[in-house]
């Protein structure tokens, strides 16, 4: 938990920058909203799309825009990764709590302000009272999945040093497959099937569809935990393998 507190405090220093960033995020949300309103008009479907997009826009700070590679690339770059390996807890565990602090910060200073603005100015609908808890549960599951995917980017940096390419690939995959910028019902049917068999949709589309009461909590929960378990096992195994490699390099 100390790690989480530290990364929370580290983010706190740049509050002013983050306020500017929140305005930027709102502009991105606004662009998407205007595209959808241009095609759907000021209809019920149009307003549902606005809610869907802006709830996702607020959630992006928890499930997409977490530090690429969970701070690992930076540690590889400055060499402090060697000390990380000496710590009593594993790299996976340590990275998780570092990200928890960052996510908590993002939730309070990014997601909540963007969400409040969206409700007050962009007429985003609030969820049905029975959907609030299911939404939060699926969101937390989504965060864990997003963390694990980002952790793989971190492992990539241990092996290949630079992450620019893989970071762009991640952005491509998460933009297209997570449904963060488009409700999956507007995808061609065959493409939607592919998307639902990848982990990305469980970070954005599923929580927001639960928010709007369009996805069953049980189904969401089972699928999300299947991904979490599968990705965790893979992450654990890969970390062990790469740790040995580092030891060899260190001589």
């Amino acid at each position: 938990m100390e790690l989480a507190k530290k990364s929370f405090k580290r983010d706190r220093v740049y509050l002013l920058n983050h306020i500017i960033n929140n305005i930027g995020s709102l502009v991105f949300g606004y662009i998407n909203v205007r595209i959808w309103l241009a095609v759907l008009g000021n209809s019920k479907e149009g307003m549902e799309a606005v809610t869907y997009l802006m709830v996702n826009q607020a959630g992006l700070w928890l499930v997409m825009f977490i530090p690429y590679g969970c701070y690992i690339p930076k540690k590889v770059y400055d060499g402090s990764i060697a000390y990380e390996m000496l710590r009593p807890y594993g790299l996976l565990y340590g990275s998780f709590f570092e990200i928890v602090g960052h996510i908590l910060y993002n939730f309070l200073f990014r997601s909540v302000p963007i969400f409040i603005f969206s409700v007050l100015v962009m007429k985003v609908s609030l969820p049905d009272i029975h959907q609030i808890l299911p939404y939060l549960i699926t969101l937390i599951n989504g965060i864990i999945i997003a963390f694990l995917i980002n952790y793989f980017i971190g492992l990539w940096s241990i092996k290949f040093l630079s992450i620019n390419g893989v970071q762009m690939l991640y952005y491509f995959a998460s933009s297209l497959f997570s449904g963060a910028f488009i409700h999956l019902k507007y995808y061609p049917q065959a493409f939607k099937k592919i998307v639902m068999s990848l982990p990305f949709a469980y970070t954005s589309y599923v929580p927001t569809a639960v928010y709007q009461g369009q996805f069953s909590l049980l189904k969401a929960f089972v699928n999300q935990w299947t991904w979490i378990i599968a990705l965790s096992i893979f992450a654990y195994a890969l970390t062990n393998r790469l740790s040995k490699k580092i030891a060899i390099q260190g001589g």
Partner: protein
Amino acid sequence: MRLFLTLFKASFKSQAQYKFDFFVSIIGNILGLLADFIIVAFILMRFKNIDGWQLHEVALIYSIIEFGFGIYRFIGDGFNNFELLILTGKFDTLLIRPASALLQVMLQKIDFKRLGMVMQAAVVGIWGIQKCTFVNNSFYLYLPLLLLASVLINMQVSIVLAAAAFWTGKNEDIIILGHYSTRSAARYPATIYHNIFSYILTFIIPFFSVSYYPLLYYTGKSNNIFYLLAPFLGVAAMTPISYFIWNLGIKRYSSTGT
């Protein structure tokens, strides 16, 4: 020019050193931004048009903006990471050299992986051009100028925002707000936005001058030939502004130095 060539070779050698990573970087840059366009393509496949603009017309707007952005990132990577120069104090060393600081920042590094962005913009654009019925010889003559204007506007906006670091230190978030979000907005027709937002993208950060206005004339949505001058007016207005703000920043930087 010799300086540029030396740097070009050095950058290429250092970036191509790790071949696999270099390859993944290029692929990443091809795909990275393409997702945004694919999403819009899905929307337009279902709804056929956005405010009267067909998919291939939006593709053309998109590719003009992204081509300019890709080339700018290829040669102007230094502006994007300018806060690092300021925060680490490395900018001091550039000031004492005989070459212009602006040129030196621009040529910090030639970023080859950004050619991936240029390639994806070109592919989307070529696809759009093939589908657009209005394309004639005059458009082919006009297009290179339009693309050049797009590169220049991207570059000028980024110089202004890089200069913000002289006052603020960190400016990554300012770049996201001032450049990335406005550039994304300029990939779609201006009519979908509220008026104030369109004015900002016309008169303050004039991305619409290289995307929306020229295409408004070419697609036949307006007869006003004056719109073809928009890119040149945009660049002409931004040149002194970006130069002035940059110099103002340097003056401020010198005065706070030790």
